[in-house]
């Protein structure tokens, strides 16, 4: 197999790699915010449950979570939907996992806002929701962007975890080629693919930071 043939074959899996990446971001970013807000809730029950959620999702390997999401419902209720719809299982596991991390990033950002801003907003007649949406959140987004970039870059590399469910994304195909050809070249190619994707991510995120860098 020529290097070109390897690259072509591995590219076939890139679409799936990208699907995991974008769909995970799409669902985990908003979910993370929701989790962060629940985590900061004044209601003890709600905040304790959310704390437990974050603790479990961050405290166990993503690989186990993938297996639990895909096969747990089957063993418990005989439901085969998530076994047959691999991508769905993967997106659920990834979104739940990344939401836990994003939630803590959001919380850090939100709690770093000085109390004075809330008081000022109150005096000016802003409601709680308005204060959050119009004053706090835009500043939080700016402040947490570097930490979010970190997670997003990790996500690009974590897509390879989908091999746990035998989902043929780029890295799984690379592994198959490596073993059939007894060659390390596919791993080098995979490394290059990830590096290029992450360069794009880093570039896009730094543009975002610049775009949000008003008032500086």
């Amino acid at each position, binding site marked *: *197999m020529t290097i070109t*043939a390897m690259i*072509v*074959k591995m590219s*076939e899996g890139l*679409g*799936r790699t990208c*699907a995991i990446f*974008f*769909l995970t971001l*799409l*669902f985990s970013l908003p979910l993370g915010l929701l989790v962060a807000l629940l985590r900061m809730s004044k209601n003890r029950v709600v905040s304790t449950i959310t704390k437990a959620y974050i603790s479990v999702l961050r405290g166990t390997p993503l690989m186990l979570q993938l*297996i639990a999401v895909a*096969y747990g419902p*089957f*063993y418990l209720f005989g439901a*085969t939907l998530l*076994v*047959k*719809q*691999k*991508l*769905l299982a993967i*997106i659920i596991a990834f979104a739940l996992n990344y939401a836990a991390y994003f939630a803590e990033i959001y919380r850090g950002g939100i709690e770093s806002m000085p109390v004075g801003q809330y008081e000022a907003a109150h005096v000016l007649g802003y409601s709680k929701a308005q204060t959050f949406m119009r004053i706090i959140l835009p500043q939080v987004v700016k402040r947490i962007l570097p930490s979010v970039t970190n997670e997003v870059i990790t996500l690009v590399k974590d897509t390879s975890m989908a*091999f*746990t*469910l*035998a989902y*043929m994304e780029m890295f*799984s*195909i690379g*592994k*198959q*080629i*490596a*073993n*059939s050809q*007894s*060659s*390390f070249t596919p791993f080098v190619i995979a490394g290059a693919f990830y590096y290029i994707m992450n360069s794009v991510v880093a570039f896009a995120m730094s543009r975002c930071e610049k775009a949000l860098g008003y008032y500086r």
Partner: protein
Amino acid sequence: MKKLIAIALVLMFALIGCASAEGFTFKMGIDAEYPPYSYLGDDGNYAGFDVEMCQKVCEILGWNLEIVPINWDTKDIQLDAEEIDCIWSGLTIYANGITEDRFTISFPYSDNSQMILTKQGTGIESFDDLAGKIVGVQMGTSAEAALTGDGEAAELGATFGALQPYQDYTVAFTELQAGAIDAIAIDAPVAKQKIDTYGDEYYCLEESYASEKYGICFRKADTELCKQVEDAYMQLVEDGTYIALGEKYGLDTGYLVLAAQ
């Protein structure tokens, strides 16, 4: 936002895809990293002795074939959950939990020996020379099981300096090349394929430390399915396809147990 979610859902279902052709589709579960039985061929399609035999079996039975690469560590769950209809990929039967009280198992279609592969310069000529040496093995395989616990060759395994498990043989080979390990415990056909690839510097010890049988594993309830596959398989043995494919993929004809009968 709604639009985005809608696009995401459409994308998702498009990617999940649903292959529905007419007639029965037989879902063959393979370890796609196990040459010469099942692997990704040079043309980018799955190839190997087991893959081609299964293709012929499906031709005889008029079934559609879907080849599903599986995660070897969760193969029994994937079989239970009907993601696949069989595990057919150099699978060692009657060992490692693949037992008849749990599954329906076909007749053994191939024998296999466990060998020790090493390289020139290590001075390893017999099992005795392995004492205190570091031996690599693929994780979760019968090669590993035989050398540990209650395995057939556990006594031999106990003489090693260490038994080092690897995720796959490509890494183990690189470690052997680099001198980090002294030998690799490996299935005979896989060893042969590796020596063909890496060259004469590598050789197998003459003696085999354990032997095993390869078979096809079905869900417990699927005895009828197993019978159909076995009958078609025997037709391929009788018309010579079995031996021809064995030779094509470099299997030792001595191991092709069905041919002798």
